[in-house]
């Protein structure tokens, strides 16, 4: 389901598509969802893919608000969306890359092993949703900036896919 950067060769990113910068206020999550939902639609993803990419970005932004910024509502979050294309595991693919940037508490890599779903308890679902939705999920931290890179490729039949396919 999730290829955590393994086998992902150098991808070519397009120029500007859409960047959002927002305050870390949960009231703005619906704004982010609305924008990402439309962006995925015009990009040519299927309705379930649009919903699932939107969910992943929503959960990732909510995590930054809660965990990286400890729920302070006036910190800065950047969401940068680009079209990408290139060879992935020897296959020519196109997709949408969404990067989240924040200057909050660095991500604890140990937390990346999301909890088991067998137990019925509230919380700890966000990372599951993100992994499940996206083809690539990469965290990095540099110069005080946390970066979460999410990629969703177009499926072989997808609009954005080149003819080279699978």
């Amino acid at each position, binding site marked *: 389901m999730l290829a955590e950067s393994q086998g992902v060769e150098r991808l070519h990113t397009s120029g500007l598509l859409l960047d959002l910068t927002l305050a870390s206020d949960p009231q703005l999550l619906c704004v982010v969802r609305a924008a990402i939902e439309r962006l995925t639609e015009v990009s040519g993803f299927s309705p379930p893919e649009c919903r699932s990419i939107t969910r992943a970005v929503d959960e990732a932004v909510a995590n930054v608000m809660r965990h990286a910024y400890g729920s302070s509502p006036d910190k800065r979050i950047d969401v940068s969306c680009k079209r990408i294309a290139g060879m992935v595991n020897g296959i020519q693919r196109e997709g949408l890359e969404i990067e989240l940037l924040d200057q909050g508490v660095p991500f604890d890599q140990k937390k990346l092993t999301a909890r088991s779903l067998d137990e019925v308890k509230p919380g700890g679902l966000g990372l599951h949703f993100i992994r*499940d939705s996206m083809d690539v999920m990469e965290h990095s931290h540099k110069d005080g900036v946390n970066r979460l890179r999410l990629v969703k490729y177009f499926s072989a039949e997808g609009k954005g896919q080149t003819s080279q396919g699978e």
Partner: protein
Amino acid sequence: MQIAARRLDQVTIFDITGHIDLANSPELRKVLLKELKETKTPRVILNLTGVRYIDSSGVASLVEGLKAARDQGLRFILYGLSPSAREVLQLSRLIKIFEVFDNEQQALA
């Protein structure tokens, strides 16, 4: 998000509308737990027809509602799930934990 309670004879129905996300899931949790305390009907139904989106924090609030209802020996039923709400319960493997129906008629049956 808005919540309104309809208290019928044997069942209490909560009509919820709007998106459920981090901005309001704490409120949903609070209202649900408070309302459940006052609930004397053996069955509690959440009408989610007007809810297009539920995030993981909203799912957490629903799980808390379910637990509180069970503690009181009440049935806790959901109906009217949007595609996105259904997906989120499936992804979190909670769809089988909740009693889920398509519409009010089935939820009342």
